[in-house]
């Protein structure tokens, strides 16, 4: 038994060592750096400075990422729902082909697309102008908080929709057909029958998206130049301009707390489900 365990462990060890050395160790370093001053003494000064300078940005980040997650969830539920409850095969095939395009497009490319598309004189305003919906000369661009949310939603919806559509496709169709025979509308079937059964998948997808969006540096810089901005930009600024690792890591710690909140939502749901069964 032991002699069979040892080789298996040796096969895993190099990969594991790399993760521990180059991710877990720097992760722990954040705690040390955030709670100590330059001489290594324990302090909360980094946090008071971070809150003094960046409270607006912390709130801004939380609101942007939460709003984006909610929008991603709603859109993904709509796409997945139509793919499982739709009645027009051609429209379903078209939607299935359409929704995935941004799936693997990197954030930095998405940001560059949106930087031109959402500008005052971008393709979006120009198209609306050509359709007679707005006058482009009086219109404003969306290169602010709206642009960040639009970019995040554009990029993350395909991922969550893919997860949801997979989970929905493997549901037992009998309950759906039963509800349909009893005369329930499609929206009602989606909300009352389909979504509760794939809630776990939805939450997993949204938590992963939440963490991903919290880690993005390029989108807030490229899509919205001004203040308030996201804390990733502030962290880069503290490092590049002041070499101030203390405050940068304090902000990093705050982003861990936000992730912790998302994970807590996820765990609470899992526990509730475990208790229910």
């Amino acid at each position, binding site marked *: 038994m032991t002699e069979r*365990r040892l*080789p*298996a*462990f040796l*096969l*895993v060890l*190099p*990969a*594991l060592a*790399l*993760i521990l050395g*180059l*991710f*877990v160790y*720097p*992760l722990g370093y*954040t705690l040390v*750096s955030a709670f100590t001053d330059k001489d290594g003494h324990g302090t909360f000064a980094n946090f008071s400075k971070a809150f003094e300078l960046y409270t607006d940005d912390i709130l801004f980040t939380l609101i942007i990422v939460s709003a984006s997650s909610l929008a991603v969830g709603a859109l993904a539920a709509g796409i997945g729902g139509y793919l499982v409850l739709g009645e*027009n095969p051609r429209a379903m095939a078209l939607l299935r082909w*359409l*929704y995935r*395009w941004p*799936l*693997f497009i*990197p*954030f*930095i*490319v*998405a*940001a*560059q*697309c*949106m930087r*031109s*598309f959402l500008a005052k*004189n971008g*393709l979006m305003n120009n*198209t609306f102008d050509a359709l007679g919906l707005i006058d482009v*000369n009086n219109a404003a661009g969306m290169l602010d908080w709206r642009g960040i949310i639009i970019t995040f939603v554009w990029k993350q919806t395909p991922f969550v929709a*893919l*997860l949801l559509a997979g*989970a929905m496709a*493997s549901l037992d169709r009998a309950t759906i057909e039963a509800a349909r025979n009893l005369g329930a509308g499609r929206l009602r079937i989606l909300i009352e029958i389909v979504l509760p059964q794939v809630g776990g998948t939805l939450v997993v*997808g949204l938590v992963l998206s939440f*963490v991903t969006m919290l*880690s*993005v*540096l*390029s989108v807030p*810089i490229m899509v919205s130049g001004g203040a308030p901005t996201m804390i*990733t930009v502030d*962290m*880069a600024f503290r490092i590049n301009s002041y070499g101030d*690792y203390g405050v*940068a*890591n304090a*902000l*990093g710690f705050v982003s*861990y707390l936000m*992730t912790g909140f998302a994970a807590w939502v996820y765990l609470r749901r899992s526990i509730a489900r475990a208790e229910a069964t």
Partner: protein
Amino acid sequence: MRRGLLWLVRGATLGALAFAIFGPIANLALWAVAVRWYYPYKLPLSYGLKYWYEVFRPSSDAAASLGTSLVIALLTVAACLALAVPAGYALARGRLPWRGAVMLAFLVPQAFPSVTVYINIARIFYTIGLNGTIVGVALVHIVHGLVFAVWISTAAFAAIDRDLELAARNVGASALRGFLTVTLPLAAPGILASAVFVFLESLDEFTGTYFVGVPDVTTLPLLMFNASIGGNYQIAAVTALVLLVPSVGFMLVIERFLKADVLASVGT
């Protein structure tokens, strides 16, 4: 009447969705072939491939960045496969103590916002002379890619019928030969998909390179970022298209290699 209305709503919704998805890409493509385009003109004043030439000219910064990006991506794929194939096999087949904890460790890089980690890696690398080196950047990409490589290859190995390996052993093949001639070829499609994915992730990686690569390593995403911030929309658009095409191509073919449910189970 109601039928007609339904068609209208369906068509309008799909049309709006198509505009939302392809509009930003179309705008990027327009910038990539625009030679002169400024306010208040709605479309470029003249088209051409002038900036493509500027980007792909052998002596250009972009050509050098493309070379750097490819070297780093190939290093990353080679290292990830060398580490993830044995690890994935052991996790799928071996009797590993604390298997759950080990699998969880390979999820950690997905579970925490990475900017803070990159900042601290850059600080550590600075003290040991790895900052601003190809190896330093590749190491950051490898850690990021390992998550996907390990999970996908574990799934690929776990999906193989164990009896096939046992049959090979019964007719006298050694454990290594059984692995190389039976198990590995069967797992190859999944491993290949993970290799392509790791390659793309490395090619597209921005944040880690931004902190660890400065000032000497400029990959294609960094070049694109600098061009965009510097207001050179054509160079940024051409570079962005170079990064976009493989990503979209991968999205279109991925299901031939990996079923959607395998893909969906990665990282969950």
